[in-house]
């Protein structure tokens, strides 16, 4: 214990890793599932899904503790990690090296996307009741603009990639996958998960379109 106090890098890094999956990754999965409900129309989305969520007790506390803080920490420490990299994706064109590089690039991409996205949804909703009450309509309005749709698509794919690839890295970091074979196999599993999540996400995005 004392050693971590003097030299916390290991713990911070593991915390960063853990929070990436739990709760941030878990939230993303849940969030994509939530948004995939858009296919069933505004009534269902606003009335059942969003209303259920908005009706939860202690919602702000949950949002802050389970989403905002972990995400902020993960993003903040992620920026430090990004800063340690001196990637040479052109010199070393190995798949893992590319994934390593993309993991960091996508982190930055997500950060920018989130500022925009959360600002336009949750934050804007704080003072614009219309947004809060008809999130479906709001999203439909946003996503009907092709460039905005593009931004969302990009943000979605970056996030999904980042989670899936992050998961496969976690396998090594935590020592779940050790042999090259295990790492490759788990990589395929994560890729599968990523594709699935991407499908759910795109499905949800399209569901908002008129």
């Amino acid at each position: 214990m004392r050693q971590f106090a003097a030299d916390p890098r290991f713990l911070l890094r593991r915390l960063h890793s853990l929070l990436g999956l739990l709760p941030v990754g878990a939230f993303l999965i849940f969030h994509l599932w939530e948004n995939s409900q858009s296919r069933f129309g505004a009534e269902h989305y606003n009335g059942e899904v969003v209303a259920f969520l908005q009706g939860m007790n202690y919602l702000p506390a949950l949002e802050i503790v389970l989403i905002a803080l972990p995400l902020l920490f993960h993003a903040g420490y992620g920026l430090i990690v990004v800063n340690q990299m001196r990637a040479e994706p052109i010199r070393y064109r190995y798949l893992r090296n590319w994934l390593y590089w993309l993991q960091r690039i996508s982190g930055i991409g997500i950060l920018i996307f989130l500022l925009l996205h959360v600002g336009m949804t949750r934050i804007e909703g704080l003072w614009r009741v219309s947004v809060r009450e008809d999130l479906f309509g709001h999203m439909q309005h946003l996503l009907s603009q092709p460039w905005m749709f593009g931004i969302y698509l990009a943000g979605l794919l970056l996030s999904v990639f980042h989670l899936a690839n992050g998961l496969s890295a976690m396998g090594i970091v935590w020592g779940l996958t050790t042999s090259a074979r295990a790492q490759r196999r788990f990589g395929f599993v994560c890729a599968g998960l990523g594709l699935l999540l991407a499908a759910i996400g795109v499905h949800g995005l399209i569901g908002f379109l008129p």
Partner: protein
Amino acid sequence: MKGLPAKTTSIRFRIRRQDAPGSPSYWQEFAIPYAPDHNVISALMVVRNNPVTADGQRVAPVVWDRNCMEEVCGSCAMLINGVPRPSCSALIDSLRQPIVLEPLPKFPVVRDLLVDRSRIDEGLRKVRAWIEIDGAWDTHEGAPRISPGEWSANYFYSRCMSCGCCMSACPQFGPHSDFIGPAPLAQVRLMNAHPTGRYDQAERLHAIMGDGGISDCGNAQNCVRVCPKAIPLTTAIGELGRQTTVQAIKDLFGG
């Protein structure tokens, strides 16, 4: 690769030179008569016998490091056509010309292609890459048993010759960071697997759980791709991930 055009009559080099640490680097080109059985070292030896550049200028002989010329001592690593590798086993016939030689990156240049790799040694010291023994005398105890399977896993790691290729290819390692790099990490894996080396496992793990330790690896896995000895560095990193996970739980919650 014997498929080179038959008209190859010379071997051409582009060499990045640097007179001293901190001084600017510059390029020079050399050409020597072609022969099929050259490797980069034997060709550099020919250049050394008559250090004249391709445009006829007499220059100081190129400085570089080598010793065994059999790829076991680890001295001769450099950047050859952009990739870190030992130069003694780099056969000319398998290289695109002009062959571009640069010092092994990430390590401070001493002169020309000679770099200072003392950071590898520092890393090994930091992670306590040795077995604690009472002294270098006979204790009249037979050897601890090691199964052949375990032996072959360990043997892989014991062949690391500290050439530094893996570290120079690692995007997390370099003057900008205090990451000890993959080679010393793999030695922790090796020492922790020895029947008596295990006794000091916690100390070694604590060493790599500190600054510059295992958490600075970002799993880029270039290291394992460039290692000339095919040392399963990323397997070691995974296994150390597991060991540190367990160790951290012990440290945090007692045990």
